[in-house]
């Protein structure tokens, strides 16, 4: 009996002397939580809340907020614009993302390959990252001027004899989408390269050495070792790029002066959302945002499922 009691007493005494660190964990979480709640959670909830109301301004007259239930959701579904703009957004994203990821993989593989012994690596890494530093709107403005009917590209093409008269880049769906995709690709391939390089450098070098000893070619090493082991980073890059792509706004907005012309073929979802903000139409804009939230969630899940399924 006594030894048990003694042991219990000793245990209790010991417990009180233990320094508890987990409260610090919570304290360190506070700044993040506060920022998250104020800038993310509250806006998220109020967006959903707003989407159930008719609430806009006509001139200086405020109309609403009146509760209308799911009316806003119905309006957006029935006018048929949402799938169209989703399609535009996805086309422009894919057009930009495919060259971007290929370019980044190639550059990443070269930069991390010790046998190539590339010189001035840091310099090149800085240079390819540079386009990301330019404000998207300034970049779009630059392209707008370059590809204007009387812009330098057109005069060069005419002088080279490619065209007889100025080609209207801004009035063809293909060229406008192509320009948007090119700009997005140019702006983001540096960022992707750096992310992929980090992933490639995290791969155990002994794997590469073993493969070389076994006589694998550079191509085999890339496809059989680098790519499979890079998958987690690739998934991350794809999902972040997809979310960024769905939120594409500034480049097409500035390039087409907010119209998404020709015939709104380059209008993205966020540009459409922006249209509702002229009249401060928080109801419709809210409903549209909720739809986009759902679409983004579904697409991200799909990407995650697809790229991770073979692993198991």
């Amino acid at each position: 009996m006594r030894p048990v009691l003694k042991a219990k007493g000793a245990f209790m005494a010991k417990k009180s002397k233990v320094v508890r660190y987990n409260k610090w964990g919570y304290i360190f979480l506070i700044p993040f939580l506060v920022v998250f709640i104020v800038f993310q959670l509250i806006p998220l909830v109020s967006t959903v809340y707003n989407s159930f109301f008719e609430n806009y301004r006509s001139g200086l007259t405020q109309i609403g907020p009146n509760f209308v239930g799911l009316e806003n959701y119905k309006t957006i579904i029935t006018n048929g614009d949402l799938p169209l703009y989703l399609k535009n957004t996805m086309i422009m994203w894919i057009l930009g993302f495919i060259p971007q990821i290929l370019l980044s993989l190639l550059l990443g593989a070269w930069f991390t390959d010790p046998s190539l012994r590339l010189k001035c690596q840091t310099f090149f890494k800085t240079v390819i990252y540079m386009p990301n530093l330019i404000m998207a709107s300034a970049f779009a403005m630059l392209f707008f001027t370059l590809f204007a009917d009387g812009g330098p590209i057109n005069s060069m093409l005419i002088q080279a004899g490619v065209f007889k008269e100025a080609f209207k880049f801004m009035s063809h769906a293909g060229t406008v989408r192509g320009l948007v995709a090119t700009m997005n690709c140019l702006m983001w391939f540096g960022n992707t390269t750096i992310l992929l390089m980090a992933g490639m450098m995290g791969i155990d070098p002994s794997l590469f050495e073993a493969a070389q000893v076994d006589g694998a070619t550079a191509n085999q090493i890339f496809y059989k070792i680098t790519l499979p082991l890079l998958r987690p980073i690739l998934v991350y890059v794809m999902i972040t790029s997809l979310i960024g792509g769905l939120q594409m706004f500034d480049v097409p907005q500035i390039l087409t002066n907010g119209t998404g012309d020709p015939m709104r073929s380059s209008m993205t979802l966020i540009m459409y959302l922006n249209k509702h903000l002229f009249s401060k139409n928080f109801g419709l804009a809210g409903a549209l945002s909720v739809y986009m939230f759902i679409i983004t969630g579904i697409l991200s899940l799909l990407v995650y499922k697809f790229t991770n399924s073979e692993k198991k």
Partner: protein
Amino acid sequence: MKKRLVSLLAIATMTATMFAACGSSETASTDTASSDSTSTEETTATETTDTADAAVELPEDTGKVLNIYGWNEEFKSRLTDHYADYTEVDATHGKIGDVDVVWNITPSTDNAYQNNLDEALLAQESASADDKVDLFLVEADYALKYVDTDYAMPLKDLGITDADLADQYKYTQDIVTDSNGNLKGASWQACSAGFIYNREAAKEILGTDDPDEVQAAVADWSKYNETAAKVADAGYKMCSVNDTYRVYSNNVSGKWVQDGKVVIDKNIEKWVDDSKELVDANAETTDDLWGDDWAKGKRPEGKIFGYFGPAWFFNFCLDADQEGTIANKGGWGYCVGPQSYYWGGTWICAATGTDNANLVKDIILTMTTDKAVLKDIAQKDADCVNSKTVLKELASDDSGNLDLLGGQNPYAQLAEGAEKVDLSNLSAYDQGCNEEFQKAMKNYFQGNATKDEALDMFKKAIVEKYPDVTAE
């Protein structure tokens, strides 16, 4: 050492992008903060005003701060130069006697000016005396949005009578008359506009550059279209379809929005059909106004026959001070054109709830009716002023001759145009409708859509912009 420098650079660039991302929202918040604080630094006044009981007898001014809302420096420089009591303090502050003048200037890009003014006016009632809007400026395209509300004060409540304003052009008053017939603003400008043509090209194509004979060649739309065909044969373009738009849209027979429904007027439809034909015949361009391609016609190499525009356009937008432009060589001529119209101008409105009613009244009267001031504005600032007498004087002597028009005195034509402008069919939706219509129709002109598809696109855009309007 070198390597470390490069990697330092790399780190610096990457951190810079992080901040670049937050940049836009940061500047936005400081903007609003600064506009809020501009007027708070003054001392507080406790008096409130009620102007309702006094129609002509105004209450004594109690405000110590006169808040003026505008979108550029134009009115500020007019007030500085021509309002005797005004002294400038700094870029956004001035003084009239004991009253501090505070300029709240927001550019109109992306509707920023109107958004800012909307918030200020909606908060007018609860704002402290020093923060209340006293004067605000509007453009014709959206004047009714403000004028047709109680936020703008009828001029007769300020004690300004019809007799005071008799010398002004009627169209300048139509724009700021609300649906009950109350006049709620005044302008010092009369921006009647016409056709500005390239004399060289006119001589080559029409065999004359005399304003009357060129006018005969563009006297109505069918003659204009005939001339355009000749212009195209000579390798020139008449102008942009967006140049002619205002000429058509000023001469409509009904409002854009009737009983909550968008109505496309016959004359607007005529613009679509005429323009499509001219674009297909290579006689007009589809360039957006103010763009680089559009601006090329200011030089002879641009091969443009003309522009449509008012006095401020040929005085300030044709780059007369640049070597090699047509204006620099005095190569433009001016005639009234197919239909009379106006373009631009700034109207001064008094905000309901102002605590400086007497001062506001005096500013409006001095700046828009005092003939000596108006003549001074016309001669010093090359504005086409809103006074029949002054324009007549300018038309009758050589002081109105302009070098950039090859010595032509345009005031006779400007005055004639201003008399003829008829703006009884304005609506508060005009700005949005006009902008969206031109944007949508560009698709049709460029062959990317049929006329019906383009019209559907316009209707869609209008319903987005004005949820209270229907389009079917």
